[in-house]
């Protein structure tokens, strides 16, 4: 039974647990966290099983309610989906694990059940977006994600409600544009199923309706995934959110947005449409992405606040992915998909670290990170892994996606993109080494350089073990993905790229 219903179980297990948690919260509040954890763990295990199944047997279709596709809602799991499912559920699992100690400090006790319920809903929504094969179902899950996201972010620090409100407005505009785009497609095709649309659309490539739908889709989803210059809601929202929330939202939400972009452009509209009918859209997308990369890197350099710095890095990373999508040859798409995976891990790692630092020291100002390598050596080790990965130092995964993006740009003769990628690498070096310098080196007077004595005794004071384990797992993941990127490409990504590119 389980093996047959894997796709739906991945989504419904955390969903039903979200309801259960609320009821449990009325009875016994302590149970909420373990139950939520178990549900996410189950979801992760199911995703892994599903991925294995997909690799062995190819695409899996699942019909909700037993109704066949154009009439009912269909879940389609191919290589790309399955990988995204594993990715999202893993990152969610890690951040949920991590949120145990973290949420206790940030969320009032009486609200803990609701917190976990919303947390699970957020995870459900993200998984639902990834797994669905229906345009409108995607919208519904997008809204579940957004709504729970609004609430979770608003529970953060002082100015969080305002940030969340801005997010509400921007997010709703994005969702409305998406809905409009679906409506425009529906009026000319009469279908909502992605595969069905992909079959019908090639006959309608000249239609103005489809063109408009495409544009609105791109704008809407760019808002959701915070592509420059529509990213303005992101830094505030993710900085001010509680750290247990930003660890979940920051790595996954933008990546899922990127996944949707990829899925709809290449699986619904088809590579022909975007490359031949509307090449200009690709060009604009590419330039915006290049702008995102540069802007994000430069703005990151201008921040003192560690978490805000990371959010700008996130903006830049979204740019990388979109650069790959915009170049749209095999190499670049490989890079883009790989970067979705890598970036989820990198951002997860860095936000986990940021959360741990805030948890222990209460500061996000990088100039107050002094002596942190003595106080929290393990956390700082993880930070270095994440930072090197973002910079793109080889054994870490960040290098490999950059490599493919560069190869793709080379093949497409887009020299500007190569320059942008390499320049932003240098900016990232400056960004992260500033942090590492502050944390590791203790600027001292030359006179003291040789006396050997420690000017200040800093006690070892690490984050709790419940936060450390997820951090280390993610850090190990970063290295492993880097090391095994060849396998990932050969067994997953190769099949995820549309065949006719």
């Amino acid at each position, binding site marked *: 039974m389980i093996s047959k219903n894997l796709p739906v179980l991945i989504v419904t297990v955390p969903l039903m647990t979200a309801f259960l948690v609320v009821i449990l919260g009325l009875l016994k509040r302590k149970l909420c966290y373990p139950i939520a954890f178990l549900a996410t763990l189950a979801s992760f295990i199911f995703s892994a099983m599903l991925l294995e199944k997909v690799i062995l047997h190819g695409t899996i279709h699942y019909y909700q309610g037993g109704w066949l596709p154009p009439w009912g809602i269909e879940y389609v799991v191919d290589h790309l989906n399955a990988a995204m499912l594993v990715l999202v559920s893993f990152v969610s699992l890690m951040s949920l694990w991590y949120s145990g100690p973290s949420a206790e400090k940030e969320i009032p006790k009486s609200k803990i059940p609701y917190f976990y*319920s919303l947390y699970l*809903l957020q995870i459900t929504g993200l998984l639902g977006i990834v797994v669905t094969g229906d345009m409108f179902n995607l919208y519904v899950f997008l809204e579940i994600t957004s709504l729970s996201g609004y609430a979770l972010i608003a529970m953060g620090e002082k100015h969080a409600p305002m940030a969340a409100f801005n997010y509400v407005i921007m997010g709703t505009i994005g969702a409305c544009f998406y809905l409009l785009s679906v409506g425009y497609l529906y009026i000319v095709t009469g279908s909502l199923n992605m595969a069905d649309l992909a079959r019908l659309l090639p006959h309608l490539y000249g239609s103005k309706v489809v063109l408009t739908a495409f544009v609105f889709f791109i704008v809407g989803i760019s808002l959701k995934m915070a592509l420059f210059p529509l990213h303005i809601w992101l830094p505030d929202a993710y900085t001010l959110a509680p750290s247990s929330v930003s660890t979940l939202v920051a790595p996954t939400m933008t990546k899922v947005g990127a996944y949707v972009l990829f899925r709809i452009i290449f699986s619904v509209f088809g590579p022909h449409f975007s490359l031949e009918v509307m090449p200009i859209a690709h060009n604009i997308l590419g330039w915006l992405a290049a702008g995102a990369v540069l802007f994000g890197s430069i703005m990151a350099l201008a921040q003192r606040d560690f978490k805000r710095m990371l959010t700008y890095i996130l903006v830049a990373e979204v740019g990388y992915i979109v650069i790959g999508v915009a170049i749209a040859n095999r190499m670049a798409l490989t890079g883009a998909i790989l970067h979705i995976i890598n970036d989820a891990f990198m951002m997860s790692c860095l936000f986990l670290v940021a959360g741990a630092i805030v948890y222990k020291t209460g500061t996000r100002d990088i100039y107050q990170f002094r002596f942190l390598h003595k106080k929290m050596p393990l956390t700082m080790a993880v930070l270095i892994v994440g930072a090197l990965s973002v910079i793109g130092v080889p054994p870490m995964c960040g290098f490999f996606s950059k490599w493919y993006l560069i190869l793709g740009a080379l093949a497409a003769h887009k020299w500007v993109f190569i320059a942008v990628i390499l320049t932003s690498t240098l900016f990232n070096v400056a960004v992260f080494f500033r942090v590492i310098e502050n944390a590791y080196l203790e600027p001292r007077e030359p006179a003291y350089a040789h006396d050997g004595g420690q000017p200040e005794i800093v006690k070892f004071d690490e984050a709790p073990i419940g936060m450390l384990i997820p951090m280390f797992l993610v850090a190990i993941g970063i290295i492993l993905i880097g090391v095994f990127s060849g396998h990932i490409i050969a067994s997953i990504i190769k099949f995820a790229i549309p065949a006719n590119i």
Partner: protein
Amino acid sequence: MSLKALSFLAVLITGALLIYGTLDMPPWGDPNAPAALHVSPRYIEKTVEETATPNAVTSVVADYRGYDTMGETTVIFTAGIACIFLLRRDEDDY
């Protein structure tokens, strides 16, 4: 002031684009529009036979596309929990 001008500009562009899109649309209320021919006829024809529910909207809502509706209910649930989560305080009495 510039914010208003800017948003007015954005609105104009968006509106123009949307209207551009409508030019190729089937006429309003056309019974032969693709939307009326492709997926939906089955719902009308088979609703009584397959679900014993004369109201096609209900049968589509709760059965054919029941999964969407579960999502919809979840959205409402999310909103309720979110409001309680955000505004409830222990000392509050309503």
